[in-house]
């Protein structure tokens, strides 16, 4: 069976160029980057080269990059570390954080952990588009606000947030600004200067790099308490022996992303739009979730009346099409997506939704296969669903 992978927001394959770059650091150049000897120096050189590659992708300075174990560590370090390090404002109440209800669990659950430590968090609402209004952020900011954390691109619906405006607010109110850019880096241009962010987390495996490695950008002068304590690695901000092959992989992936971005983005957008238009033309009672305009080019989140997303994902997998019901982390749980709930979908609508996310290696043929399989599977599931009749759809659509 020919298999099609349309779940690139969950993870991406490692690019051949990336695995090739990593290979020597698993075998010949296996030194510890903190060692004094030749082996150590070879490893250190590779780590610093990777740092430069990441720096070029997001327009940062090498001293501003901390390598992490991935997006979850980056998000947690940023949120917990920035709040911990912030000095309470004189005369103000307990520290306060501004975030959104559609953050990835890496940020959302870190924020909830803060709430358990009596730190207040305001979740700025998103409308049905999934885009937050900077005016709402402004209203949420208080004298005691020490951190604003707003994701760049949403992992489930692909919505892009107006970071530049929020960055201006953060500067105006002298508050640390973090963005979880795990889904955005490599898909849309990311420039920390233009965005005005102080902290930015990214992950290698979403941009054709290996799993288990990522980076946190920390603007010079930003106070940040580490999550873990240990050695003096990464300028005392992240202890632990550097994951040299992983870091090399991240660097190579970052460089490839810089190179590919200009052609990948429009190509993926065209493929995604063809997929979207094809589904809408072939399947009645299908709707796009989120804002079609402010969306990263590869992501398509749709709902199908009368079909459970869970069943659809399984049935599609058996037909060779891989996609997901939302974030891979919450698959298998009954909780409907917190993102879809936040943009105003009902429980049933959220549960009838799936996410299709394209990547660099998807082709026209992949989209063609998905367009062939998906309508049949939806039809089969609807035929078995006691709650669905096409008459209702027509009435509902008109």
């Amino acid at each position: 069976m020919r298999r099609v992978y349309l779940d690139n927001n969950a993870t991406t394959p490692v690019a051949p160029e990336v695995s090739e770059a990593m290979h020597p650091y698993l075998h010949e150049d296996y030194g510890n980057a903190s060692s004094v000897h030749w082996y150590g120096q070879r490893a250190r050189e590779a780590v610093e080269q990777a740092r430069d590659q990441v720096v070029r992708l997001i327009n940062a300075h090498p001293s501003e990059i901390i390598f992490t174990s991935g997006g979850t560590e980056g998000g947690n370090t940023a949120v917990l570390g920035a709040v911990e390090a912030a000095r309470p404002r004189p005369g103000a109440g307990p520290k306060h954080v501004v975030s959104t209800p559609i953050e990835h669990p890496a940020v959302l659950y870190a924020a909830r952990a803060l709430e358990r430590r009596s730190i207040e968090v305001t979740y700025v609402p998103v409308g049905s588009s999934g885009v937050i209004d900077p005016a709402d952020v402004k209203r949420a900011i208080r004298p005691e606000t020490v951190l604003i954390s707003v994701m760049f691109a949403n992992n489930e619906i692909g919505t892009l947030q107006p970071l530049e405006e929020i960055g201006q607010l953060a500067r105006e109110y002298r508050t640390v600004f973090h963005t979880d850019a795990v889904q955005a880096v490599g898909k849309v241009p990311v420039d920390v200067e233009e965005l005005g962010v102080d902290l930015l987390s990214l992950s290698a495996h979403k941009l054709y790099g290996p799993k288990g490695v990522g980076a946190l950008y920390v603007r010079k002068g930003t106070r940040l308490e580490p999550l873990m304590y240990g050695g003096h690695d990464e300028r005392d901000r992240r202890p632990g022996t550097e994951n040299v092959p992983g870091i090399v992989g991240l660097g190579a992936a970052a460089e490839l992303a810089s190179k590919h971005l200009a052609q990948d983005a429009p190509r993926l957008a065209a493929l995604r739009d063809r997929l979207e238009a094809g589904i809408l033309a072939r399947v009645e009672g299908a709707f796009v979730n989120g804002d079609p305009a402010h969306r990263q080019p590869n992501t398509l989140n749709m709902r199908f009346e009368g079909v459970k997303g869970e069943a659809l994902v399984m049935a599609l997998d058996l037909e060779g099409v891989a996609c997901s019901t939302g974030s891979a982390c919450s698959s298998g749980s009954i909780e409907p997506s917190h993102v879809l709930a936040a943009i105003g979908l009902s429980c049933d609508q959220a549960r009838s939704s799936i996410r299709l996310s394209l990547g660099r290696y998807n082709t026209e043929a992949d989209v063609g296969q998905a367009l062939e399989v998906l309508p049949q599977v939806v039809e089969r599931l609807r035929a078995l669903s006691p709650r669905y009749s096409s008459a209702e759809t027509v009435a509902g659509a008109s």
Partner: protein
Amino acid sequence: MTIAVAMSGGVDSSMAAALLSDAVSRRDPVLNSTANSVGTVAGSREPLLGLTMQLWNQRRLPGLQGLAGSSANPGHASGRCCSLDDVYDARRVASFLGIPYYVVNLEDRFEADVVHPFIEGYLAGETPIPCSLCNTAIKFEEFIHTAEGLGAERIATGHYARVRRDPETGRYQLLAAADRARDQSYFLFGLTQAQLARAIFPLGGLTKDEVRELARARRLPVAEKPDSQEICFVSSGSYRDFIEAYLGEQGKESTSQPGQVVSVEGETLGEHQGLHNYTVGQRKGLGLARGEPLYVIELDRDRNRVVVGRNEHLFRQRCLVREVNWIRPVSAGECVPAAVRIRNKHVPAPARVEARPDGEALVEFVEPQRAITPGQAAVFYDGDEVVGGGWINRVL
């Protein structure tokens, strides 16, 4: 043809999956001649799928965790169904067998169709068996539905029971398992012809010991896993705590109120703490100091009374059964001689079963039976064959 196997992560359903997987790779007629004639498994894209039903969220009712979770890992619900460990085990077995595997979430249906009636039953003075409800409403209804959506025409479970198609009538028969000690046909009395036609029970002809042996020989990762308990979502012995915790979570008051404990002669002997704390035949925990042993004879819902008496009062001869499912065609007014089982471990006793209108039946035993309990199932056997069964409504 595609078969979806319900995999709980236990040794039985894992071995059921392994037997089917072996049958598929041998391209053998599935199982033995006592199973339904399913022909040869061949020609389909995925002949076999493993599915785990997620039925209950073990993170709910945190107050109960301490009762069931292991002390080394508090809050970690081990030994109960639908724990992460069980899903992990089922996934590991599916991967070991090389079959596609998914977890399907049926929590909503389980709560509505199994947990609610279970609690209602107890509060109404009955002693319900959720497993039968689960089989009828979940495993052989919602699960079959889910399997169909994935292109599976048949479903298999690790139940110890057998299905046979009568070649003369074309009807499907439900038979007790070869291993009488493990037979689960009692819990399957509610299956319709359409459900039986789709069911495969690969373990029906095996003993539990043979299943363990086969699992070891096949090197299944769960070969040594201990057997699960009786009620999957309630930790053993604490159904009362479960009911209290559940009602608490729902913000509901228990409808079960304290009332009188009376003797069969009508003498008031004490007070009870709500009918759901008692079951027919219970001797301990009555809080009565009497010279002779006393047993719960009846839970009188109308007057909210627990009726107690001597052991001999427990022996009764007739009961009324509701919501009867006849697997063999029997019409109202007919009388069927049968051996009737009134709880899982009861040895079926000879009786005369009279089919009545509105899905009722009157069971009249040849000899009085001890502790006929409303809420339990009465299942009618003719030798190995399950003729039908229903819920014990009233003891007459």
